[in-house]
């Protein structure tokens, strides 16, 4: 996935509207506050809370 810096700046967690970080391998977007990882499938970020993966801890 290639997300422009401009786009990353405005992308937000759909649950808390907080900032997101791209995972190291580029396979998802993480909201640290909600402990959720939004996957990227076929190059399209899946920004749905229902389909987000819960992070441990």
């Amino acid at each position: 996935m290639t997300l422009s810096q401009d786009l990353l700046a405005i992308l937000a967690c759909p649950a808390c509207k907080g900032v997101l970080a791209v995972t190291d391998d580029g396979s998802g977007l993480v909201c640290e506050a909600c402990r959720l990882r939004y996957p990227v499938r076929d190059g399209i970020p899946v920004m749905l809370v229902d389909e987000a993966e819960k992070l441990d801890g």
Partner: protein
Amino acid sequence: MDDHAIKESVQQQFDSVAHHYLSNSPMAEVGLLDLIVDLAAPRPEHCSLDVACGAGLLVCCFAPLVASATGVDLSRSMLTAAEQESKRQGLVNASFHLADSEALPFADHSFDIVTCKLAFHYFPDPQRAIREMKRVAKPDGRIVLIDRVAAEDFHTRELHNRIEKLRTPSKVKVYARSEIQSMMEREDLTVLDINRYEQYQDVDEWLATTGAPSIYQQMARDLIVQSLETDREGLGLFRRDGRLTMTHSTAVFVAEPRG
């Protein structure tokens, strides 16, 4: 159906007909797309968002005119078609995300232009969708909401919606123009202008598009035929070259966040 079931139903419906929306649908009508772009007044430094973007037609219209054009939709197939179309056109500043119109994945005040074309009647909580559109729009931004509208008269509108539900069970409701305007004003949006746009479509073609079970299509057709003389559903029916034809009334709302 609860809200979640409605959204799943909408996803499934559009996943199955994505191919249709880039070609021969009224969604692709150039006149309406041009009107929307004109009313949105895009500038090269603008960022635009199309909510429930479908196969990305409007995003692809905005992309050459703005710094970035973004689209969100609940249907994976629609977004895949949108990605392919934007790549085909060489639009490097177009991007697409799978997202819920009622929970947009963007920070407050991110976009100069927020559009939503012919999708509003699918939202289980349209008030919330408008709230989200306003939230992500910049204070000096512009919202252009486009939707089919039904008659102002309650009973006419109810009959119209009965036919719509038979054709598209996932459709929540086609609203009257005044209902949509009230919802926008409730979110402190100033409605600057409401344009009316009419499109004509062959009734059988319209009934066949969404993939509804044929028995429902037939029930809807029967109701329409019964209404030909009196137009009690407000569908603006007439015969064109011997074919039963209907009038889609579309309202294009232009609004700005207040104050």
